[in-house]
């Protein structure tokens, strides 16, 4: 099919789709006037039940904790897929020298940025149930700090700090840790993924029960997964450019 017929076909079907979308959206309540029943209910009970100040964290890691388990394994499976696709096809060895020559101001900025970002990421994971943030967001920031080391400072320092075998292990520990914390609920006589540790005092760092633990395991998994993904693409780049 030529580009022209394809575009024509899209314009015809796209305008029908646009009409249907417009029709569907016209039936939605006006912007800012929908009151989701579950959201209202959670606003009233979530703080008392979970002792997590951030309702989003209590939804993600408590009320919908089982879904988040699935989400973690979606990420895990996708990283596995990328590794299988790229590793198997890579025949040549990686030449790290290509990514080590840097403009000095970039290198200097990177040296400041890496520790600051890393710390920020840990902070975001640790305070996910007290403020905006959490394991997924913080994990990405931690991984960004490690990847920044490779793209702004020195690739060899990066592969020394985060070798792929270590990143693989970290990712697996994060994903497995989530399941282990869930099973901990069963061992303690509660249900799977039910909080089995003390909920603590609202607002303190040591509060919200397993939400904190699950947030950390998600953070560890996301950081590991992102670093593995970045490493796979880096190595691809280095091996192909030779």
């Amino acid at each position, binding site marked *: 099919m030529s580009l022209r017929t394809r575009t024509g076909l899209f314009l015809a079907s*796209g305008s029908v*789709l646009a009409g249907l979308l417009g029709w569907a959206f016209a039936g939605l309540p006006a912007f800012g*006037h929908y009151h989701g029943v579950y959201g209202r209910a*959670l*606003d009233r009970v979530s703080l008392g039940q979970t002792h997590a100040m951030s*309702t989003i964290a*209590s939804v993600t890691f408590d009320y919908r904790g089982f879904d988040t388990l699935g989400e973690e394994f979606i990420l895990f499976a*996708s990283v596995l897929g990328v590794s299988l696709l790229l590793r198997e096809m890579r025949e040549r060895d990686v030449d790290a020298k290509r990514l080590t020559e840097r403009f000095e101001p970039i290198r200097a900025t990177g040296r400041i940025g890496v520790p600051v970002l890393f710390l920020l990421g840990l902070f975001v994971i640790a305070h996910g149930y007290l403020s905006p943030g959490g394991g997924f967001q913080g994990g990405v920031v931690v991984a960004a700090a490690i990847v920044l080391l490779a793209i702004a400072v020195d690739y060899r320092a990066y592969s020394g700090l985060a070798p792929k075998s270590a990143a693989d292990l970290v990712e697996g520990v994060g994903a497995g840790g989530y399941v282990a914390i869930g099973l901990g609920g069963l061992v303690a006589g509660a249900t799977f993924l039910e909080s089995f540790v003390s909920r603590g005092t609202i607002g303190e760092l040591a509060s919200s029960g397993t939400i904190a633990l699950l947030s950390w395991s998600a953070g560890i998994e996301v950081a590991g997964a992102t670093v593995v993904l970045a490493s796979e693409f880096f190595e691809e780049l280095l091996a192909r450019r030779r």
Partner: protein
Amino acid sequence: MSYLPYALAAWLFLVGLYGVVTSRNLIHLVVCLAVVQSSTYVLLLAIGYVEGGTAPIFNGIPLGKKTVDPVVQALTLTDVVVSVTTMALLLAIAVEVHKRTGTLDPDELREVRG
């Protein structure tokens, strides 16, 4: 004005889809797919918005305060993760395609080679 966010979601969806349909480069196609996916974030967050509501984080705000819907915000978080995973996989496939065929243009990939 009150339907503008929904219109934005529909526009993002359609414009991204247009990019996917007419794309001449697989990397560009994956980015267009990301645009399609962002329309779902806009839609979810627009549905959860409550007029005059604050963030659903009870840190220094009274309990009865009106907040935006936390359920759709958590759903958007899931949505972002799923979007990242699909992008990573598709980009890896694009790398493989380029390695095997030497091209990223989907039009040149019409013939299946064994």
